[in-house]
């Protein structure tokens, strides 16, 4: 009985954690809209969440003033255009009303097969 309860609690905790993680990824996607990373031929402006085919949070660091995510992205401008794999560093700063996205740095970019 006891081990069953522990198992159920663990499953619930995992579910909640995954849900929170998914919500955080969705918030990131939303915050990215309007931001540009990289430059020149490598510049990517996030114009809609539809262009973000996948976003995985790889790392999160936070202090009192700054929150920095490292994320892996799959990006595609439109159907029938090439898909790109990117790694980005998304930096937020704390404001009076909460965390606000400050800029996005392009760490790597490659065209997917």
């Amino acid at each position: 009985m006891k081990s069953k309860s522990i198992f159920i609690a663990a499953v619930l905790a995992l579910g909640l954690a995954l849900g929170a993680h998914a919500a955080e990824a969705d918030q990131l996607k939303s915050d990215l809209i309007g931001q540009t990373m990289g430059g020149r031929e490598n510049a990517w402006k996030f114009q809609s969440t539809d262009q973000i085919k996948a976003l995985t949070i790889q790392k999160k660091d936070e202090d009192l003033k700054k929150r920095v995510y490292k994320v892996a992205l799959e990006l595609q401008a439109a159907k029938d255009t090439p898909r790109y794999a990117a790694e980005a560093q998304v930096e937020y700063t704390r404001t009076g009303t909460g965390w606000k996205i400050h800029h996005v740095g392009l760490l790597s970019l490659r065209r997917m097969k």
Partner: protein
Amino acid sequence: MNAKGIVSGLLGSLLLCGCKIDQPELGGPLANLTPDQRAQFQEGKRIFQRVFEPKDGLGPLFNSVSCAECHEDPVVGGVGDEVEIHASRFTEPDSCDLLLQEGGPVIQQDATPLLRALGILKEQVPANATQARRSTPAIFGFGLVDSIPEATVLSYEDPNDANGDGISGRASRTIDGRVGRFGRKAAVATLFDFNAGALPFEQGITTPLSPVEETINGKPVPPETDPAPDPEVSLEDLQKLDAFVRFLAAPPRSSPDTYEEKALVKRGEELFASLKCSVCHIPKLKTGPNPIKALDRQTVELYSDLLVHDMGPELADICVGDTRPAEFRTELLMGLRFREQFLHDGSAKSVKDAIERHGGEGSRSRDKFKGLSDADKKALLKFLQTL
């Protein structure tokens, strides 16, 4: 003398003394900037002229130590005699590899002493890639070019040559799907994107938007060769640099001195239109509504449609994004008289040579030019010397 006479007299005096009304000087800021914007221009100019050293973040691979090292003639923001090496790999029918895993399309031609000590003097063109030469353009008036609405550019597209004039321009699309307009292949959508990429690509300076060093043909730079912490410039400095370029005024046109020269220039301008040069080199476009007054609904004499055109196999070099090897963005002719080398690669040593090497969609106009009398050729070239 009545009021009309007084105004006419004053205008006449201004013209006689060679003065221009509200005409920004070459290399100066746009007219109608606010004091704050003029201050941004000046601060940005300092960053544009800043000579970076390795301890500041220069390199380890780079093409130049400052923006102004290349964009310098006859004033800061002008042309340069430097010719860069760019490369990519094109696979028919339309696949373009920008060598993103092999160091990117800009092949840096210089290295800092710490990298040289390891025997690396420059980046190499990857195997099986095609290389191209790129001359240094002037950047005067680019803020105005940036402010031309996308819809205006798209309105000139004729990808299937529906009107049968032999010219079928199309808008280039960037990797994220926006309409491109900057760079010889129009593979960059905005002036800010261009400026943000210039620091890492040309000087090896990392920015918050590109916080890691460019690789050496795909291999990470040895840490001991890159002593400055990343990013090597702040977002604020990048924005100031952008403000300088954005607020640089378009180059003023030169005015012919004599009645004979005026007539020659007028004849040349007529020929420019009748030879259909102006179908691609559209003389004037207008900026859209803009919160910056100096960029708001202004006329830009850029002499380009900002579209890419097939210029024929003789000029073809590399693909960039969705722009094929033979396609090039219509070169902006504003400031033409300050250049000493012509075409995208600087291989033409005169305007006449550049015209005569137009191919593809430019063939008909080229052939008409070749068929002109010497007097008409002289007139057309004289007109171009006023740009």
